[in-house]
């Protein structure tokens, strides 16, 4: 392992510790009927984050099956949290003033600076910025360190089990690719594209990216399947510029991301985080823009690629 990987593992272990804290919070909530299984969910997840990379991969595979069984049986629920009342936050706000913004804004700036000037990579920059933010929270806000534990576990529990969905979707994409789902699609699509029709090929590729992303919730997984299944045989082999096809292909998939509950971390998890009444309100707000962007992608690819 190189230095950056070691740093990454430290941050993933910290994430694991946060999961453990959520699990402990559930264990202590004696009123919660599912407290044992809820705690098990978070502890197993923590185990994969901390020990997973050092063990044979099939062990993490087994953990994923157990986690899925627990959520399938509805044995994972939110436990009781120490939620600050509006009176408390208002009182704190009046006492502290605008200084309360400093740690939050510092995360953003520290991440840019760390990603730009430190040689640890963009992923580690996120972790570094979180550490900077936490130190500032302790110094500027003078929050007790205990607060990091209670409030961190509270927000994580608020996000809930759906927080690991993107990671699982990536694993699903890997299985789809290994199974050759792309080949099946390419042989099916060849019926739809008339010989030499560039515009129809562009439309089918862009819509295919969006559609597959909508189904899988993951533009990355869709890209490897649809580009190999449609983009190469029907566009690039017909003389389309691969740079244009590749760059626009992935963002065409993102038009689909805007439309799908499968992209839970962008469309569903935030509505839980924002406590909306309508859990699909984000997707509804995004649909018109997604449609306009899809048309823009088709036109750009058609005129720039050939």
């Amino acid at each position, binding site marked *: 392992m190189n230095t950056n990987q070691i740093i990454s593992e430290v941050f993933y272990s910290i994430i694991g510790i946060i999961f453990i804290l959520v699990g402990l919070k559930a264990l202590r909530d004696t009123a919660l009927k599912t407290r044992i299984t809820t705690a098990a969910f978070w502890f197993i997840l923590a185990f994969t984050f901390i020990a997973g990379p050092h063990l044979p991969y099939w062990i993490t595979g087994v953990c994923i099956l157990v986690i899925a069984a627990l959520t399938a049986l509805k044995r994972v629920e939110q436990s009781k949290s120490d939620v600050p009342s509006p009176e408390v936050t208002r009182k704190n706000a009046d006492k502290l003033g605008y200084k309360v913004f400093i740690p939050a804004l510092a995360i*953003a700036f520290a991440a840019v600076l760390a990603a730009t000037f430190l040689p640890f990579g963009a992923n580690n920059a996120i*972790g570094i910025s979180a550490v900077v933010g936490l130190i500032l*929270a302790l110094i500027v806000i003078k929050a007790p360190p205990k607060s990091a534990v209670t*409030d961190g576990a509270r927000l994580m529990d608020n996000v809930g089990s759906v927080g690991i969905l993107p990671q699982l979707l990536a694993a699903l994409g890997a299985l789809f690719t290994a199974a050759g789902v792309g080949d099946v699609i390419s042989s099916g699509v060849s019926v739809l594209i008339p010989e030499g029709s560039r515009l129809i090929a562009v439309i089918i590729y862009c819509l295919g990216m969006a559609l597959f992303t909508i189904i899988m919730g993951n533009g990355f997984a869709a890209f490897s399947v649809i580009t190999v299944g449609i983009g190469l045989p029907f566009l690039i082999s017909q003389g389309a510029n691969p740079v244009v096809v590749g760059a626009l292909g992935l963002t065409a998939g993102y038009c689909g991301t805007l439309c799908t509950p499968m992209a839970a971390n962008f469309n569903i998890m935030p509505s839980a985080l924002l406590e909306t009444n309508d859990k699909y309100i984000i997707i509804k707000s995004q649909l018109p823009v997604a449609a306009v962007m899809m048309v823009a992608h088709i036109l750009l690819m058609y005129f720039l690629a050939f």
Partner: protein
Amino acid sequence: MELLKLIGVVIVLIGFVLKRDTIATVVVAGVVTGFVAGMTPMEILETLGKSFITQRTATLFVLTLPVIGICERYGLKDKAVDLIRKAKAATTGRVISIYLVIRAIASAMSLRLGGHPQFVRPLINPMAQAAAVAKYGKLTEKTEDKIKGYSSASENFGNFFAQNCFMGSSGTLLIVSTLVEQGQNVDALQIAKMSVPVAVIAVVVGIIHNLLLDRKLSGQYAAKQEVK
């Protein structure tokens, strides 16, 4: 029976349409696809486990939750409302649009931080809500939801469509590695440059969308006041 390989896609579709547990749906779809493709149980577990471990990056947002949680306890939302009350000129659509521009620029600079917990919940949504409250008084729950939706949407617009402008972004590197693997000679700088037009178009379309929200709100609440 080549078509059988698409069974995973079908399972995902059915699982979501019937609102089954999302995590279980995805895992079942993956396992069944593996079996249909003739993988052994061990190969399926290995593939699942390996990509789950390498994709832990998707869960990095968790690291920022303690700081956000503390800031919320100590009145971040309350001060955001205080702040926007001072800026009387700002409208909901303009607040969200300003954020869209900032988010797109940050995203193009490789800043992918999970902006919903970091910015939208503690900062942008309270500001956008407060702008509407300052203008129209008490809002209906439906309007509150709508503003939450638009705030989160602009986060996604800026994040998705601008992120590939950065050479080292994972999306850009995915495009490069996929195409190089297929014998195409492309590099990250080319892909990053070619991603700029879409980023600019997304910001413009998003701003228009947000300003239309302002018009909708003023129409809706002006009509209500006349009824009174």
